[in-house]
């Protein structure tokens, strides 16, 4: 299973693949993002209780979802890196940390902006909010740890272990609204049950989540592509392409 993935580690192959993929992904991103924004800000009706203030969900929920998803990707990459010693996996882990930290910070900022008019406070030491803040610290710790260890191979493995230890926070964040009494509402989107949201509001939300996921892949490809080709090697084949 890992063989085709491992073959992508060749900077040349990675360069060709990402160069072909990025325009398609960018087109998909523009489509889903446009639909999500228009649907969320214009087409979806105002919430019966929160009015137009609920429209923050179209940026808050995708950021919160991405903050968890990216950490899960990092944990999977950490396992692949430790077990199969995949260079590509360590690169995914390294570059995902910065993007994930950004989405986590945004989830907290947009959550505060939503919380102030609805709950009457910018911040509360609520289980969901606190566990999300811990996730931000985990991302920050991963980024700092990567830059602190000078020996690259040891640093990669140590960071992977740190990421795996921190993974315990992901189910805590997800189930915090069920395990403890919190101000934060329960999950709006459910995989195995009907979602607690009308379809006119649901589809733009799904489109925004898809757009943010595609965005993550694009930025990850750009960052990894640069490191593989420009930082790690100075390839003559690249000059011929440019």
């Amino acid at each position, binding site marked *: 299973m890992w063989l085709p993935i491992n073959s992508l580690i060749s900077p040349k192959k990675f360069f060709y693949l990402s160069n072909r993929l990025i325009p398609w992904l960018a087109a998909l991103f523009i489509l889903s993002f446009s639909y999500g924004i228009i649907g969320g800000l214009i087409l979806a009706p105002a919430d019966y209780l929160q009015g137009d203030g609920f429209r923050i969900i179209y940026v808050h929920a995708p950021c919160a979802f991405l903050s968890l998803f990216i950490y899960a990707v990092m944990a999977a990459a950490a396992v692949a890196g430790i077990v199969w010693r995949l260079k590509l996996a360590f690169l995914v882990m390294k570059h995902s940390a910065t993007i994930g930290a950004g989405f986590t910070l945004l989830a907290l900022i947009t959550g505060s*902006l939503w919380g102030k008019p609805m709950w009457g406070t910018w911040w509360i030491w609520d289980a969901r909010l606190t566990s999300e803040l811990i996730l931000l610290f985990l991302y920050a710790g991963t980024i700092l740890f990567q830059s602190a260890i000078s020996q690259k191979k040891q640093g990669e493995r140590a960071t992977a272990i740190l990421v795996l230890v921190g993974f315990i926070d992901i189910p805590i964040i997800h189930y915090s609204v069920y395990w403890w009494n919190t101000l934060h509402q329960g999950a709006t989107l459910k995989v195995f049950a009907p979602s607690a949201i009308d379809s006119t509001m649901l589809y733009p939300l799904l489109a925004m989540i898809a757009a943010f996921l595609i965005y993550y892949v694009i930025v990850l490809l750009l960052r990894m592509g640069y490191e593989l080709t420009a930082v790690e090697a100075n390839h003559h084949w690249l000059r011929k392409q440019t």
Partner: protein
Amino acid sequence: MSETLLHFFHMGGYAWYVWTAYASVFTFLAVQWFYPWRRWQKYLRDQQLKS
């Protein structure tokens, strides 16, 4: 028309919260994409000059 637009931007009284949230997310998305993209472009330009 202008009244509809004003109504839209007013966001039922939540304008400051809604637009600040959207602006912070859009700024992050733009910056996070722009820097790696610009670095790539600069690198490709340098390669072109070398060849």
